[in-house]
């Protein structure tokens, strides 16, 4: 990371509209040559948040710097470390996290160096626009935060780890609507974990096949009825968000605790896993050729 120029970042987070990214994202930024922020970009900010501790940039910046240090030369390993820690640092509701402007702000004003470090293509030499402003499974920070949000088991971030085992399969899982049913997400992660533990060859192709098969099955089967989830305690999340006013910065060598808003029903996951295993066994395996990946090492 030492070759990347320094970033002069603001103190508090804010919202930056998508149009501002289209207008101000330059080739120099995407290539990591210069992170100078023109005043027009600062003026394009829709709103800066109130000065609450949870919107302070400092802790996010510390995390990102540590990730770039720790995982120098093996950047894809940074995701699994950063995802739960970013989630526990940026404490917010799903409604807040669904606002793309927050992620734009992080990528353009707080840590463009991280976006480039993590996603600069080996051939193209630049980080794609979608890593600065894009879908929740592509944008450099949104993908980390949402992966922790969608795969954690209440306050337990451990299931997030197997999710990140196969870089080229994460998008195919994350953009499925069926994983919005928590036991479905948990069951898929359990299978990914098994593939990883057994060291199955071409595992990411298996995972892609699994995503497709489960998604197709979900069009005629209602997983919510087959495997009912326990309700989510939204108030517990609000308490967790409020606690950020005096919570210490997240630990680096053990996992932080997430919002204690209710664990996924284990029985539900146990019902789905054998079903999904069967789907996986019946799914056709497509071995894909590698594209110019902008997310592997």
């Amino acid at each position, binding site marked *: 990371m030492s070759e990347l120029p320094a970033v002069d970042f603001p103190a508090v987070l804010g919202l930056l*509209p998508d149009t501002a990214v289209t*207008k101000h994202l330059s080739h120099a930024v995407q290539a990591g040559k210069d992170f100078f922020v023109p005043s027009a970009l600062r003026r394009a900010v829709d709103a800066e948040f109130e000065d609450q501790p949870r919107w302070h940039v400092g802790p996010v910046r510390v995390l990102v710097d540590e990730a770039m240090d720790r995982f120098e030369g093996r950047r894809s390993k940074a995701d699994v470390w950063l995802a739960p820690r970013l989630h526990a640092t940026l404490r917010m*509701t799903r409604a807040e*996290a*669904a606002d793309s402007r927050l992620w734009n702000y992080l990528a353009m004003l707080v840590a463009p160096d991280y976006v480039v470090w993590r996603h600069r293509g080996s051939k193209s030499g630049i980080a794609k626009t979608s890593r600065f402003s894009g879908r929740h499974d592509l944008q450099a920070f949104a993908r980390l935060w949402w992966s922790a949000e969608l795969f954690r088991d209440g306050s337990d971030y451990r299931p997030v780890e197997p999710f990140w085992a196969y870089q080229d399969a994460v998008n195919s899982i994350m953009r499925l609507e069926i994983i919005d049913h928590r036991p479905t997400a948990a069951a898929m992660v359990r299978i990914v974990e098994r593939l990883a533990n057994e060291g199955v060859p071409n595992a990411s192709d298996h995972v*892609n096949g699994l995503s497709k098969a489960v998604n197709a099955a979900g069009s005629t089967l209602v997983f*919510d009825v087959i495997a009912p989830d326990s309700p989510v305690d939204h108030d517990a999340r609000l308490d967790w968000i409020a606690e950020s006013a005096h919570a210490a910065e997240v630990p680096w060598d053990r996992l932080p605790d997430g919002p204690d808003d209710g664990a996924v029903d284990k029985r539900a996951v146990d019902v789905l896993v054998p079903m999904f295993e069967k789907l996986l066994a019946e799914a056709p395996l497509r071995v894909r050729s590698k594209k110019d990946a902008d997310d592997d090492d």
Partner: protein
Amino acid sequence: MRPFLSYPRIPDTVELEIVSVSVDGRDLPYSQISRTEKTVALHQTGRGDWDLATLHLKAVLPDQEIADGPWSDVVCLAVLSENSTNVRSTARLAKGRDGTWQGKIELVRGRHLRRAVLSLAVVGEVNGVPGRAIGKSEAPWYLDLKESTPRRQREIKIVEADFREASEEWLRGFKDSAWVVATVEDPEIPIVYLNTSGVEGLVEVLNGTSGSAAEKVLRDTTTSQIAQDAWIAMFHTAVSNLDQDDDGTPIMPTGWQEPVLKMMLPDVLPGRQLTDALREINECRTSGAGWAELQTNIQFAAGKRSQIAKKLTGAVRTVDREERSEP
């Protein structure tokens, strides 16, 4: 388990109705719940934040078919979801004495952003397979968090602003334009910004409902020109963000992009099935081959939607009449 095999389903659609809505324990005015539009506007002007909306639901299922059909363990499930927040919650309805299915589902404010979708799934065990979807509500209900009028179809949003002093900084760069179209500003809906200081008097003409024949002509032709710009911008935005399957098949996007593509593709690439047209336009755009040629078709399709020819014909005739009637 073989999910792809066909299995029997309820031939008729089921009806889902939102009977009433309470927001933090207080009833939402009935004027904000539209049965014909199947839309609920949850925003109440003058009332600040709220945390929880409870939707009271009633569903009518075809009793005879439920009773006689080859299914058992029938469950009537309300499903509330929103793509942008990745939220999906469900609630079971129970059969009441009057034969309808009733229940409630909660919408937590902090888990939704703009528009939540409520649908109904009838689920049962069929041929030994539990959890089969055997029926569903025809059109889902929409729950708008930022609207105070229940309207299903969201038209293009029109915003008037003095670009020279606009609070949106990026607009100032267009201070000499009469209007601009923004398709990414709000991912839910395209916005046309009308510049109140671009062409003096134009906005007044556009907003007017009466005036001289000349004024009407100007209003009509300008409106359809703005519409043409908007259609072209929407089409380009919609095709440039196509998601792909892992075998490279482009996926039809959701939101406003879907109807735009469905309406325009038959004119842009005539004579093809929708999926083929989508694949072709995507190939064309990403490879660049034939993309320049397609621009003509895109203009044609946009012109058709914005009724340019019709409006101009009317304009020419009006001008002609005016001239002839002059002494």
